[in-house]
């Protein structure tokens, strides 16, 4: 345990960790708000505080947690809940391929931990700024800066949500501010013609697929958005 504390201490001082952290600063505030909102929603639909803590710690996916709630509330069959979770998690399969590309040379346990702790905003920040000549330690420090603060803020937000649930009425305002945070994080990623095309096509698919099951629309948006970006000539460092 002492060793963990020491390596955590040196990690926090690492300039690459700090640089990763600074690229997700706005994101972690949004993630914290999302944590509050998601847990408020879970508490309001009848889960106990312990069940909320377990969900947040183990599942660690706001979209999967939120998507399961309405189904739980109406007592849907287990298979329907699982199918929905698979659909909203399809984008993680794409992320896992990105993680395999960057961290494939790490030992298995480290890879699995990285896979479990990598989330949308952290991965976007990592891929947009990482350098191909980094060694494993530099990669890990920057990855940790992009992703670990998000995990911490998500858990803290969730605990705040449990505490607030008994005082607050559920308001749509919290959920919307959480969404604004995702939007705020996304906009600066659009910095080339390829990324612009990707965003426009993904948005179009999301509008057309508004009534499709959540995960289907997201997955289609990812496939077609990526396809659109690939129509533009890539020069390796100017992409996302």
């Amino acid at each position: 345990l002492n060793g963990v504390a020491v390596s955590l201490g040196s990690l926090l001082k690492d300039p690459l960790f700090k640089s990763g952290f600074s690229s997700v600063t706005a994101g972690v505030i949004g993630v914290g708000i999302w944590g509050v909102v998601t847990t408020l929603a879970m508490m309001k639909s009848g889960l106990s505080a312990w069940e909320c803590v377990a969900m947040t710690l183990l599942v660690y996916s706001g979209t999967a947690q939120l998507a399961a709630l309405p189904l739980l509330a109406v007592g849907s069959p287990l298979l329907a809940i699982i199918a929905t979770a698979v659909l909203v998690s399809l984008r993680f399969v794409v992320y896992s391929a990105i993680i395999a590309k960057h961290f494939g040379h790490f030992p298995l346990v480290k890879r699995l931990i990285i896979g479990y702790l990598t989330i949308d905003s952290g991965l976007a920040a990592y891929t947009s700024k990482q350098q191909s000549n980094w060694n494993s330690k530099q990669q890990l420090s920057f990855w940790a800066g992009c992703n670990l603060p998000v995990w911490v803020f998500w858990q803290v937000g969730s605990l705040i949500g449990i505490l607030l649930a008994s005082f607050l009425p559920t308001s749509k305002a919290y959920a919307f501010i959480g969404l604004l945070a995702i939007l705020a994080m996304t906009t600066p990623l659009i910095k080339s013609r390829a990324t612009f095309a990707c965003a426009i096509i993904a948005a179009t698919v999301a509008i057309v697929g508004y009534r499709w099951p959540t995960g289907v629309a997201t997955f289609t948006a990812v496939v077609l958005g990526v396809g659109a970006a690939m129509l533009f000539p890539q020069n390796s460092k100017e992409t996302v």
Partner: protein
Amino acid sequence: MSNNHSIWVVIGLLTLVVFLSRNLFVIFGERFKPKGRLSQALEFAPLAALVAIVVPEFVTAFQAHGTSLAGHVIDGRAFAGLTAIVVGILSRNSLYALVSGTLCYAALTFS
């Protein structure tokens, strides 16, 4: 919550689904490493997913108010989103985008 299956079974299965999705390719490590154009293409995936997560909220706002300017002013979501996008593009700083969008939303909805 009164269901015929335990909430703990649901939590366990959700954990399994998310963990396996997150690690599907990670498990293979270097033996299954995307290369070339595929690996470039994958870099765009998070951007597309983030866009697809955000957009439905604005579709809901436009379904509620259509082209009624007054409706959008009272609702605040469309203008807050637009503010965040414009500030984000101009400043290239996501914190500025978040703060300006939130202020716009607060000003319109709580006034």
